[in-house]
């Protein structure tokens, strides 16, 4: 790991100022960033540790939405009675991430800022039509995920919270890559105020909505309807863990299982 300057601000405003001044990187739990720095894939000159900012933590119900602070860990989301009651599928997503040690440190904000092509939370954020709150604006999920490891965030912008509207029904099904536990393919299906939304992770260079499955489920919200949709394999990931054709097949299968689980 290369050397860096270290700062631990106490407020969002101070953290944003530190990022703007230094051109450095925010640090949440370190569950992706520290690994990347060890491999020298990331080489920030300054680390701005967000862990001292109390306002970034916590889970609350606000009207018809659950608002989760960016620094809230996967373990906290998984065990939250508020989340389990209102959006059990979201608690299940958090519980299915990596392993216990990773869930004890990894955070919601870090996961979606990182936007790993096989990460679980991006699928939940996109399918639930969540809104990402930052220090300066609110970004709807459809505008947030831009590409592989790429988001709408500016370099000196910090996610403060994510607001998840409570869906009518929702479920997430992941076919985990057995060594990393990341999604070989994961599909989050939700019936929301804005219609049926289906988000796919792991299959392509970044999380995306499966519009053909959404159309089929809008007509008939059944496992069979999802399974009948043929997903083209072009542009899907093709690697030692699974061919593009295999992943294409898994998308419909995982979608149908998610519909069955959503009930």
């Amino acid at each position, binding site marked *: *790991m*290369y*050397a*860096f*300057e*270290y700062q631990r601000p106490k407020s969002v405003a101070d953290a944003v100022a530190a990022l703007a001044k230094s051109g450095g990187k925010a*640090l949440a*739990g*370190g*569950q992706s960033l*520290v*690994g990347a*720095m*060890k491999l020298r894939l990331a080489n920030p000159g300054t*680390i701005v*540790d967000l*862990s001292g900012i109390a306002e970034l933590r916590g889970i609350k119900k606000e009207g018809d939405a659950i608002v989760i602070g960016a620094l809230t860990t996967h*373990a906290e989301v998984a065990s939250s009675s508020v989340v389990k009651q209102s959006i059990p599928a979201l608690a299940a997503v958090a519980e299915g991430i*990596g*392993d*216990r*040690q*990773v869930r*004890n*440190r990894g955070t919601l904000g870090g996961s979606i800022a990182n936007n790993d092509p096989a990460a679980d939370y991006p699928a939940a954020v996109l399918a639930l039509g969540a809104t990402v709150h930052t220090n300066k604006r609110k970004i709807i999920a459809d505008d947030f995920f831009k590409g592989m490891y790429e988001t709408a965030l500016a370099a000196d912008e910090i996610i403060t919270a994510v607001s998840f509207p409570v869906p009518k029904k929702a479920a997430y099904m992941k076919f985990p890559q057995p*060594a*990393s*536990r990341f999604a070989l393919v994961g599909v989050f299906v939700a019936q929301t105020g804005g219609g049926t939304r289906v988000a796919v992770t792991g299959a392509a260079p970044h999380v995306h909505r499966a519009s053909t499955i959404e159309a089929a489920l809008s007509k008939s919200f059944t496992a069979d309807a999802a399974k009948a949709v043929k997903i083209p394999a072009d542009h899907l990931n093709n690697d030692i863990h699974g061919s593009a054709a295999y992943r294409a097949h898994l998308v419909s299968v995982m979608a149908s299982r998610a519909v069955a689980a959503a009930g």
Partner: protein
Amino acid sequence: MSVSLSLTVNDEAVNAQVDARTLLVDFIRNNLALTGTHVGCDTGQCGACTVLVDGNAVKACTILAVQANGSKITTIEGLAKNGELHPMQAAFKDCHGLQCGFCTPGMVLSAIDLVQRHPDADEATIRAELEGNLCRCTGYQNIVKAIAQGAAAMRG
């Protein structure tokens, strides 16, 4: 850049000056000479480096020492009290829950985190909760048995 650390390790106050890029596991092993915390993979996969940070199991190779500043750390060396093994250590010994022993410190600390949250964990829960700890020797059977026995002993 050098940073000052002030934390509690196995109930003792520790103050130190370290390079900010020092990993928690390297701080524990090199600065504190507590070599019971192992490095198996150094990539966050195997769990051999697991320690408790404020009671929660964490892979010490995947956080910086400075991220644990102000925290209470427990390593395998901190479990035995007055020369008596912790009930979870005793259960691993009793059930032959180890062969080479390389994974064992991490297994024991993960087991303690697990029992805190699931005092009555059944076999399926134990196996699911051990996702982050790899063992290349035992085939896990006796580890699972040891954790069930250790959990019962911890319930008292």
